[in-house]
């Protein structure tokens, strides 16, 4: 099912090879497995721009260059960005990082090189992720960026992987739990027929 995904906000421009752990969210939150957005948001991009947490507004855009969010694909930075309802526009992103971003519902456009002649830090833009149409409201210009796959858009508008799975279950009630399976260490083994692969 295809849903629209349009956003409007201000641009925060970052460069090439922008590291997740060093530039976006301190590594310590990954080690501590912090997933609460409230704890993560005050640290988002702070190591790069100490003023970022104070000036970012919900709906804003993070503009990356090549290899945006490189390094180990820790999810904490993406959780904070998704919770702030940010969007990402970048030239490229490591595949695993892109998967993590989509899995927490962060809208993104990759393969984009809008260039300084279209947008600069602080510009207000409006982007339709379905078509790639982008308007710079500050400068009164427009351009066409590569669109976001409808498959990924659908996951993002559902809020990420868990949201998409909840939506799937709603559409497929036959897979829903009637009685949950109780797993414990005292319930005894339940035999399962073993089906070995046959050798030719």
């Amino acid at each position, binding site marked *: *099912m*295809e849903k629209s995904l349009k956003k409007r906000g201000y641009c925060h421009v970052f460069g090439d090879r922008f590291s997740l752990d060093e530039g976006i969210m301190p590594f310590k939150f990954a080690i501590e497995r912090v997933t609460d957005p409230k704890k993560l948001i005050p640290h988002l991009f702070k190591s790069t721009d100490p003023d970022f947490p104070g000036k970012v507004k919900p709906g804003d855009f993070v503009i990356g260059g090549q290899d945006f969010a490189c390094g180990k694909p820790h999810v904490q930075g993406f959780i904070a960005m998704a919770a702030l309802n940010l969007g990402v526009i970048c030239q490229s992103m*490591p*595949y*695993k990082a892109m*998967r993590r971003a*989509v*899995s927490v519902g962060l809208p993104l456009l990759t*393969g984009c090189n809008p260039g300084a002649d279209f947008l600069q830090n602080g510009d207000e833009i409006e982007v339709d992720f379905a078509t790639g149409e982008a308007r710079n409201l500050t400068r009164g210009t427009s351009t066409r960026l590569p669109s976001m*796959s*409808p*498959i*990924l858009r659908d*996951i993002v508008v559902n809020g990420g*992987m*868990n949201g*998409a*799975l*909840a939506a*799937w*279950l709603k559409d*497929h009630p*036959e*897979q*829903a*739990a*009637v*009685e*949950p*399976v109780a*797993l414990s*260490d005292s*319930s*005894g*083994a*339940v*035999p*399962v027929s*073993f*089906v*070995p*692969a*046959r*050798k*030719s």
Partner: protein
Amino acid sequence: MPGTEASHENMPMTAVQKFLARACGRDRVEIGEVVYPKPELVIIHDGYVETVHGELAALGYARVRDPKRVVFVTDHEVAYTTQRAVERGRNIRKIAKAWEIGRLFDVGRGGHGHIFPMEAGLVRPGMFLFAYDMHCSNFGAIGALAIGVGAEVSSVLATGSLWTQVPETVRVELTGALPSGAHPRDVGFLLCGGFANGRWNVSHDNRIIEFCGSGLEAFSLASRVALCNSLTEIGVANVLFGSPPPGIDSSGAPDFISDLGAPSAGNIVVDLSTMVPQVALPGGPDLAADLASVEGRHIDHAFIGACGSGMYEDFADAARFVKNRRIADGVRMFIGPGTNEVARRLADDGITQMFVEAGAMVLPPGCGPCAGGIIAPLGPGEVSISTAATNHSGRFGSVDGQCYLGSPLTVAASAVAGCMADPRKFMSP
């Protein structure tokens, strides 16, 4: 929604395009396109079954979409060494029953889930599958495409698929022949280091690495597995080959070879005749170095096995370095045949005996210490050389232990020497 109509109907396709197009029920898919391929199998190992069950139960799921395609394998904790492991095994059997899973390969059945499905005919040339564990890329050796999806396997179980972006393909042409004492794992380490260092100025991120060339002709299935396994950790999408698998009848299989002139995101040539033994320094397979740079360094622990070097040939080739020799005092050496069938053949052919007589210990088929050091672990301050899949800190248990990787030949020679040793120096002229 229906797939986008092909805009380049007659353009040559890469192997991965063919696999994914077939799995989407289409004639072709385009590189970079995001698709929902349907797998023929979904493989999950014993270390993750409880977790994914818990995650789906928390979302309200009682049934997986296509249980008959799901395979549970047991390779991470085979010989239960804790009460928790006993409990885990019991829970896995319960989950398999509740979910009506197609196949459960329980403890002592099959062996390593990245190897036995090939020898058992469960994974076949031309097949597309998803798996929890990234080292399912081994199946590239047999001409199958298996995508390791990690925690996202919950989506595969729930919905029967998972979004996948059709990757680009980088070709690696092998020329010449490996000199004696060099091994396909050495080629794998060299490539890991080269890609990570930008030696060829070719990105490997989510690229299919496709081997081809005259040098590939001499590679056995086990050699192909070694290439697949070594490269997986650095973030490639998968490893495939430009020719059918050796020793496997793939005549009736669907097309799994790239077309002539299919798009390529890079071409690399490796002259096998120049290969010298390599190691991966502690930290990751990308930290490749010539063995000569660490030769003579003391070792406490040696291990041949795990998914990259657990096939018959790996042990048979290594055995000649321990035959009629003794493992050095103070070194504990383990061999872990990849599968029950490999273990049987090694025993039948007297190869196990060569290792045992030298003072090595035999582990049950499975991951061995490579699964976090559950069995045969490394202690703080100790040094290991092994054929494990990877060597990040703590991989063998202690975060203060140092794990080096080498070929089965290098590991065997080192175990006998008591230090990192060049296998070429242990060979008869």
